């Protein structure tokens, strides 16, 4: 009884936070659509879903996500093999660097792709600027890394003896790949594809920055509807309808993925094979990997170059402009006051908010992980716990825009008038980062054999002492890694933040978006410089995390 009470107490805090800051806002948002005038009305929803524009938006979301997912998997597989199975110089460095696109703020990716395919960019001659192809490029850019990491980790742990057995039975390298290796990797590939599809379908910053109002995905459409950018008035009902559609689609997709992932025998034999020297038949994979790495480096390098060049000269003008607050359309020179604060101050805001979001996400994530991984003593307890686990994965499937807008409309009345609270933005970002934190910590806690705790207890260790002896030594690295990821996610978070951020305390991604939306080369240049700074800050955090060598990070 005491045990259950203790677990309930542990579960109470995260559940309370989730209820107030996630379930309430999201349901508030949906309520506006389903009960528009205080009465239940599904007809409005049906009407919205039947509209021509909605159909176009849904179709656009589906096809761009599908194409991007297929491209990410196709590009990621050879690179996963090369970077995780072959002994190559600098392999560790490249693997670490590949983490950067994965956490790069979406506004940065957007501006980098624009710089690459824009009229004056290196790929300008292709005329891709403002086309869906540019959006697909952006989505692929930061999702290839997810595939490489997820599949690569599984590939690295793959026992090579079944492949050798097949080879000895007469299978050529290609046949071994098709009949033995790919089936063994199927769960990892399906996981990666599902996560990538999810990221693409709910991708916000990239689509907004590259598509504008012309090409809209479900996620950006919700944003455009709730900000009244399409018809000039806020359309709650349409936005709510799309949110509902999105949540339903995400749930269906996760169920399909779980089904596809199921294999005849789910047990995986873990055996870290030593990296092999590259051989003749590895050449195609090596070439493909080179192309992929080049494709990932190109936008970043173009962005960097763009931020350093003005009118054909190398200059630090744009970096100096970070001290200013943007160039107003009418005014000339710096300090015209497009933004209320200097860009450098926005960076400070971002860092402070990220620190808050990180400790919140860690605290909640740790509590959730502990509750989820304690051994269940009954079937009911196990199913309650599974539901609890699923509950905290919800922020992964619900669009950040829905969450942000829900904050805006539900947390502005007493007793929950939090709109001016400085903690609102960190809380929203912590909720967005929470699934990632839980996914890093749960496998580690699960890997601790319960008998270790029993052994500690039998030797006379109390619960706290046993925690220090058994859990803490294995947990501190993953905790640090989770902290790094939460920090990076918070730094780049844009969807939810853009709704609830206070105008006098903007974050860097919000400032970048505002600068890009304003005319003037100085504004655009400043946005690029700010993007480089943001990318560098994120990269530093993530590379520090990579040095911790926590296995399985990135496997969601």
């Amino acid at each position, binding site marked *: 009884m005491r045990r259950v009470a203790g677990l309930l107490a542990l579960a109470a805090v995260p559940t309370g936070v989730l209820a107030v800051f996630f379930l309430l806002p999201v349901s508030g948002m949906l309520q506006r659509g389903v009960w528009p005038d205080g009465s239940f009305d599904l007809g409005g929803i049906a009407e919205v879903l039947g509209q021509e524009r909605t159909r176009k938006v849904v179709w656009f979301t589906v096809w761009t996500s599908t194409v991007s997912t297929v491209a990410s998997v196709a590009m990621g597989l050879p690179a996963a093999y090369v970077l995780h199975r072959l002994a190559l110089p600098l392999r560790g460095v490249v693997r670490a660097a590949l983490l950067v696109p994965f956490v790069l703020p979406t506004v940065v990716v957007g501006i980098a792709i624009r710089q690459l395919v824009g009229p004056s960019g290196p790929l300008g001659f292709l005329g891709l600027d403002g086309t869906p192809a540019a959006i697909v490029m952006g989505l692929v850019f930061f999702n290839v890394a997810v595939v490489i990491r997820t599949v690569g980790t599984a590939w690295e742990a793959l*026992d090579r*003896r*079944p492949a*050798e*057995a*097949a*080879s*000895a*039975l*007469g*299978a*050529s*390298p290609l*046949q*071994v790949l098709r*009949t*033995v290796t790919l*089936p*063994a990797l*199927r769960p990892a590939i399906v996981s990666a594809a599902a996560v990538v599809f999810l990221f693409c379908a709910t991708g916000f910053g990239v689509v907004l920055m590259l598509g504008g109002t012309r090409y809209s995905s479900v996620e950006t459409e919700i944003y455009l509807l709730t900000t009244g950018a399409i018809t000039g008035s806020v359309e709650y009902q349409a936005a709510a309808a799309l949110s509902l559609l999105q949540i339903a689609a995400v749930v269906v997709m996760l169920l399909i993925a779980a089904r596809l992932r199921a*294999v*005849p*025998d789910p*047990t995986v034999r873990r055996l870290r094979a030593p990296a092999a020297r590259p051989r003749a038949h590895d050449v195609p994979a090596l070439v493909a990997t080179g192309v992929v790495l080049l494709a990932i480096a190109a936008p970043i390098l173009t962005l960097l170059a763009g931020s350093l060049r003005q009118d054909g000269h190398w200059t630090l003008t744009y970096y100096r402009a970070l001290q200013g607050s943007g160039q107003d359309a009418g005014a000339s020179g710096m300090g015209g006051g497009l933004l209320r604060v200097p860009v450098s101050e926005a960076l400070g805001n971002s860092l402070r908010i990220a620190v808050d979001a990180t400790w919140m996400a860690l605290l909640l994530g740790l509590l959730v992980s502990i509750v989820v991984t304690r051994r269940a003593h009954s079937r009911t307890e196990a199913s309650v716990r599974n539901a609890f686990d699923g509950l905290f994965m919800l922020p992964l499937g619900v669009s950040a825009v829905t969450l942000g807008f829900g904050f805006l409309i539900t947390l502005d009345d007493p007793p929950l008038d939090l709109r001016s609270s400085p903690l609102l933005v960190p809380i929203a970002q912590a909720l967005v980062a929470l699934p990632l934190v839980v996914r890093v910590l749960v496998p580690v806690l699960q890997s601790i054999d319960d008998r270790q705790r029993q052994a500690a207890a039998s030797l006379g260790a109390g619960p706290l002492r046993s925690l220090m002896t058994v859990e803490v030594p294995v947990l501190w690295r993953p905790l640090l890694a989770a902290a790094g990821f939460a920090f990076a996610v918070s730094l780049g978070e844009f969807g939810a933040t853009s709704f609830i951020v206070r105008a006098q305390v903007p974050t860097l991604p919000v400032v970048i978006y505002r600068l890009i939306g304003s005319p003037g080369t100085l504004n655009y240049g400043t946005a690029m410089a700010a993007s480089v700074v943001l990318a560098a800050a994120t990269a530093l955090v993530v590379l520090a995390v990579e040095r911790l060598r926590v296995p399985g990070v990135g496997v969601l």
Partner: protein
Amino acid sequence: MLSIEGVTVSFGAQRAVDDVDLRLDDGHVLAVLGPSGSGKSSLLRAVAGLEPLRAGRVSWDGHDLAGTPTHQRGFALMFQDGQLFDHLTVAGNVGYALRLRGLGRAAARSRVGELLELVGLAGYGDRLPRTLSGGERQRVALARSLAAEPRLLLLDEPLSALDAELRVRLAADLRQILRESGTTALLVTHDQEEAFAVADRLAVMRAGAVVQQGTTEEVWAAPVDAATALFLGYSRVLTGAAAAVVLAAAGLPPADAVAVRRSALTAGGSGGLLASVVAVRATPDEVRLVVDVDGVGEADAVGAPGWLPAPGDAVELRVDAARLAVLTPGASP
């Protein structure tokens, strides 16, 4: 015909296989017997083309295999733990090589049925590997290897993962199946009983080198040196005066060293050697004694079951000449 000439395999500075020569004629089963770490598995992997050679050559019918990748050698490899493909059914596993060769569905199914019958698993086709016992998994692995109709079957400790009773039964089955199918096979193992039960030729490997080879009977009867004798199951090696006493009691000419099996000395009858009992252990089949033999020192002996001497008792020992092996010094290669 497989020939291995001067083969060396090294991992960094360490030579796992050091200048090994072996020959295996068609239709024979050669066991490479050695303790763990002797390099026997590396030798097997080198023959399969899974480990690069530092020096020497592996050839088949005089044709050097250096440029031939594993999948074109026609040497099926059976692992210690089977390495069945977990995502395929038993039938899928056994039929794997048949599908690679593009055999029709009906033909493949009937061939898979025959092979499963051969290994005593008829009707197991739809099971998944994980639902099988260790012995069943090894039988499936064997059927899968035979389906490839390999020129040479490579067996890496095929029975070691099984419990003792099953190992004996499966070893007999394995020998019979290899004979019936006329398969040429190279077996590596650390278990001398497994080697004797399955193979007709034996090569003893130690520290990367082959120290002795011949028919199983030859090697068994005349181990090349003391270490080989002990590895082959001889309980002690006696030298000098002790060897002379035992050989004299057996009616053999004197030699420098003699390897003695436990059952070479039988206590409880009348014989040539006098001894006193040091320790006694009863088993269902026999009584095992440690005795102190006059002029020899400590030795092992057996007695008939049911007869139980006490430590300190005086006994007489009879020596069975067939269970001694005279070691010739300097005979090792």
